[in-house]
């Protein structure tokens, strides 16, 4: 990597004094966001992940506008229309009752992606809130909230997820979202607590307090933006993790249930026909894998782009 690349990531404040002496060395002034964006763009794996995600979302959400085959259209009139191999008419084949797998995978993907994203938002919201309170106020509040977090962390996640979903949920996406977010906010909470503990001692917080900012304003407007990086990275990785959780739940029959579908229960629907129609397992399975992989690549790319110590590599 040559010297100009290294200069790209040098903070602007340090470059400025050179302005009169050697103007040739000075790069164009770039905003912090621009610097991070440029660093992200240069990470080829992360870009591949981001593109894959865009395609996956387009496929699942806009695909049905172009592919007008009814998901539930059962075709039992002739034995030849069930479990057919992939063809032009049915790109991913058909299932045991002759439903078009291509349309089913789109419908399942909408549910899986929706659950992954919304459970992430709910979990991050509560995780950030709890972590911020614990870290900002410290003392008894911190102790109480963190012991509560420890209790949630002490359970083998899947076991509790299964117990709760077997009894509490009505197997709709909404209940699955609530359940997953109930159990996955803990990591964000610990992360945000740590950030707040460190940041609240900094001078800019003292300065803001001196000019009269109240606690809530200090937390939301002054400290939180400085903790945004790790939160965004955690949120991205959490989407992938939550999609896995949803697929496991649905696979074991605790999550989304037929006639509604998600990628997880498409896999469990198809597994009985693996010898005759392996695509029924492979297609939704591959899509879960691709989605989670893409979220992981983007998350790690963001982590590298946001990390101020990543300047040399």
């Amino acid at each position: 990597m040559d010297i100009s690349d290294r200069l790209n990531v040098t903070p602007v404040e340090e470059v400025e004094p050179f302005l009169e002496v050697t103007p040739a060395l000075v790069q164009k002034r770039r905003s912090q966001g621009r610097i991070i964006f440029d660093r992200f763009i240069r990470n080829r794996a992360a870009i591949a992940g981001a593109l894959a995600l865009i395609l996956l979302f387009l496929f699942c959400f806009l695909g049905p506008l172009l592919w007008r085959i009814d998901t539930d259209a059962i075709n039992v009139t002739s034995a030849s229309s069930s479990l057919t191999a992939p063809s032009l008419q049915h790109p991913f084949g058909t299932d045991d009752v002759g439903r078009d797998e291509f349309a089913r995978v789109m419908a399942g993907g909408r549910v899986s992606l929706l659950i992954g994203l919304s459970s992430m938002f709910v979990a991050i919201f509560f995780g950030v809130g709890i972590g911020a309170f614990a870290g900002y106020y410290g003392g008894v509040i911190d102790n109480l909230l963190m012991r509560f977090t420890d209790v949630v962390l002490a359970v083998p996640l899947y076991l509790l997820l299964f117990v709760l979903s077997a009894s509490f949920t009505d197997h709709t996406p909404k209940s699955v979202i609530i359940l997953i977010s109930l159990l996955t906010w803990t990591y964000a909470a610990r992360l945000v607590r740590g950030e707040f503990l460190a940041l609240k001692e900094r001078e800019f917080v003292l300065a803001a307090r001196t000019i009269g900012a109240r606690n809530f304003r200090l937390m939301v407007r002054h400290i939180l933006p400085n903790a945004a990086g790790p939160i965004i990275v955690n949120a991205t990785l959490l989407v992938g993790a939550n999609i896995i959780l949803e697929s496991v739940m649905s696979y074991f029959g605790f999550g989304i249930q037929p006639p509604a579908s998600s990628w997880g229960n498409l896999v469990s629907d198809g597994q009985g026909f693996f010898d005759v129609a392996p695509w029924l397992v492979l297609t939704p399975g591959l899509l879960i894998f691709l989605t989670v992989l893409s979220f992981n690549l983007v998350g790690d790319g963001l982590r590298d782009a946001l990390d101020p110590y990543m300047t040399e590599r």
Partner: protein
Amino acid sequence: MGRYIIRRLLQALLLLLLFSLGMFALIHLLPGGPEQVIFNPRLSAAGRAALRARFGLDDPIYLQYLKWIGNALIGNFGFSFADNQPVTNVIAERFPATLELFSTALALALVVAIVIGVLSAVRQGTVTDYTLTTLAYFGISMPIFLFGLLAQDIFGVYLHWFPTSGTQTLGYTFDPFNAFIDHLQHLILPMLVLSITFIAQWSRYMRSSTIEVVKQDYMRTARAKGVAPVPLLVRHALRNSVIPLITVVAIDFGAVAGGAAITEGVFQWHGMGLLFLDSLDTRDYPVLLAILMIGAVFVIAFNLLADILYAVMDPRIRYS
């Protein structure tokens, strides 16, 4: 150090107590509670009341909790609704299978993760490193149950290398040696499947911590003194680079337990995970509670153990 351990022990006990309270409340708040599951719908009102009284379900909830926790402390988790046997017996029957799957998968994952991590750290930036990194990404992004299904179909159904499920071949009586071999053949697939996710995750930690350690001054000194490459890695680098991994493994302990439950479900491995899934179907609450508690005890105990090991392996860390 001693005081630190005592304080952590007390904290762990408090945590367990809170956890048991939470789980007990949760399970007794659930709709479709125990009596709907066990009671015959055609039972008369008097019979129903008798059963409720026998299971102590009419007592106030705090009294039920105190009774349950008091008994649980001396190792009595009540009776299984489904089996009508003491929960302890039901679990004791399944425990060895889980222990076997869990410990072999954990050991395999640790060893392979350390080897892969060190290898890709030493060969940082080479084809080996990129290949291992790519494989790790694949491993992390693949849900365990999908791995299980694919492994069953490829190695069991198509290639006939390994049996697809269970813990032994049914309908045959082998002599002890062949029975052991047969059992091992059943163990291999679930063990591999369970370990792959953790190999992928842990090798990443191992890689970055080894890269950190190799850069340090004492490593350069050792190299300058003429320590050969392999002893340098094993004796000088590994001792320090493995420390962060210990914490990660301890934190992931619950995840491995959850993964074991999923693997057991996919492979019909007759351990506690499968028992848990079956008990969910029959709403066998005493068994579910007991398994949850055992899981939590293990998770908390290993977290504690990790903190202590941490201090033992790295003399720079002092606890007060």
